[in-house]
């Protein structure tokens, strides 16, 4: 019995047709059916698996192996060439490949081609490099700050004293007030006549404007705010304070707290008869040692701890350099004293209790 082919049963006929198991009569009938229904025709290539073998890239195969290759062939040539460019061949593989290259010059071209695949590093500059950096935060220790402040204070003091000295010198010059050193210098025209040394006592304040002063900063500083009339009143009351312009604190530092002999006042002899006549020389004044600030500052207990350095500095710079320190005792104050040329600094500590 002949079976009719229609849309509901054609698949079984189609499979038999592809398998070639239909009878001749059935095959002709199925082909007529496919011709009448072309939309049902299926591409035969999709119905059968391609049995063509898929070969793996030899390079991939070589890379999978976990041992050195023992022979170089055209199939694994890429592996050896890339390995040589990458410098990852073992010594054995390297030797094998070098031998192969000698025997096969065409392989040299393959190797050269792989060498061309190396990228050349081109310089590229990142534009905002500075923005990436973390800014440094300056951390200054308190010790450093304290030292810097101390140095600045000393320098300021030096300049201040130097300025005061300069002003005082000009002030003295204007008033023809002579200091120990400057007297000879500033009395050029009139100093041909011998100067007289007089003690500075009350007559100075009353009649004489030629006041001898010590060339010390403190003395100068005091003279800037000269209260001469008041001072002279004090001098009358207290003989210890007779030194004109002597600061109050200096009095306390005099060695052994004894009254200091007055410094001699050198007055130029002036032609004008109306100028005051200097008194006669006081014997005590002649005997008085020349005291400087050092002796006034620390008292007799002050010593120079570094005489070698100060002496050397004095000699080298031809400038008086002195440095003395002293510890406070029960009776005397301690402190230090520094003198460089005309600059002097002193500090007093309180008495030891």
């Amino acid at each position: 019995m002949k079976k009719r082919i229609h849309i509901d049963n054609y698949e079984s006929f189609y499979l038999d047709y592809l398998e070639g198991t239909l009878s001749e009569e059935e095959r002709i009938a199925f082909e007529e059916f496919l011709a009448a229904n072309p939309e049902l025709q299926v591409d035969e290539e999709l119905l059968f698996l391609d049995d063509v073998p898929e070969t793996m890239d030899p390079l991939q195969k070589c890379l999978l192996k976990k041992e050195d290759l023992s022979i170089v062939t055209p199939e694994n040539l890429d592996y050896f060439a890339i390995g040589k460019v990458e410098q990852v061949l073992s010594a054995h593989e390297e030797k094998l490949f070098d031998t192969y290259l000698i025997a096969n010059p065409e392989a040299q071209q393959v190797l050269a081609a792989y060498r061309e695949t190396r990228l050349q590093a081109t310089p590229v500059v990142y534009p905002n490099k500075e923005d990436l950096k973390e800014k440094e935060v300056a951390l200054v220790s308190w010790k450093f700050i304290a030292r810097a402040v101390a140095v600045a204070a000393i320098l300021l003091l030096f300049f201040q004293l130097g300025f005061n000295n300069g002003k005082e010198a000009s002030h003295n010059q204007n008033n023809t007030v002579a200091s120990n050193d400057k007297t000879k210098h500033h009395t050029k025209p009139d100093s041909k006549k011998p100067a007289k040394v007089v003690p500075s006592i009350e007559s100075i304040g009353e009649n004489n404007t030629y006041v001898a002063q010590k060339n010390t900063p403190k003395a100068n500083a005091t003279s800037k705010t000269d209260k001469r009339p008041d001072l002279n009143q004090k001098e009358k009351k207290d003989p210890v304070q007779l030194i004109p312009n002597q600061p109050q604190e200096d009095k306390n530092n005099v060695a052994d707290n004894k009254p200091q002999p007055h410094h001699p006042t050198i007055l130029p002899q002036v032609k004008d008869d109306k100028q005051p006549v200097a008194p006669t020389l006081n014997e005590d004044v002649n005997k008085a040692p020349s005291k400087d600030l050092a002796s006034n500052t620390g008292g007799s207990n002050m010593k120079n701890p570094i005489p070698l350095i100060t002496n050397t500095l004095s000699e080298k710079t031809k400038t008086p350099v002195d440095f003395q320190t002293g510890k406070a005792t029960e009776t005397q104050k301690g402190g230090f004293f520094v003198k460089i040329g005309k600059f002097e600094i002193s500090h007093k500590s309180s008495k030891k209790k």
Partner: protein
Amino acid sequence: MTRKEYNEAVELYADNLYRFVVKHTQNRMLSEDVIQETFAKVWEKHESIEASKAKSYLFTTAYHQMVDVLKKEKRTTGFDGQDVKQDDALSHLFDVQKTLQEAVNRLPEIQKTVILLRDYEGYNYNEIAEITALNESQVKVYIFRARQTLKNYLKSTELVA
């Protein structure tokens, strides 16, 4: 890593990192963002990073940052890079290097990464593996495949034998 060492790392490696990223993304603005973010992350952890490993740490961070940014950009804007004018970037190169740059741009991302790290920075396979979170064998495979692809590309343009 101290502040000073960090700043030295900026001086030493910022250009190299930028080159690595800009060659990858072909986009300067995106690359600058990646570098900024990379150094910001490194500074956050600078106290726990040894100065001797700063370069490796920077490249690792930059690589991961770049991958994240590229994923995000592709997802949100359909990013395809290419704001770097090829003519400008390659104008000083010879023909082979120009073509090679074009070939590198065609490589898969991971192959491009390993090749750039290998040729520009001279990293060995182990270091590249650390940066890219691959193993050494994978790095070797990617580099070999990339070389083969580059060679075939050059050959196709008949610039090499």
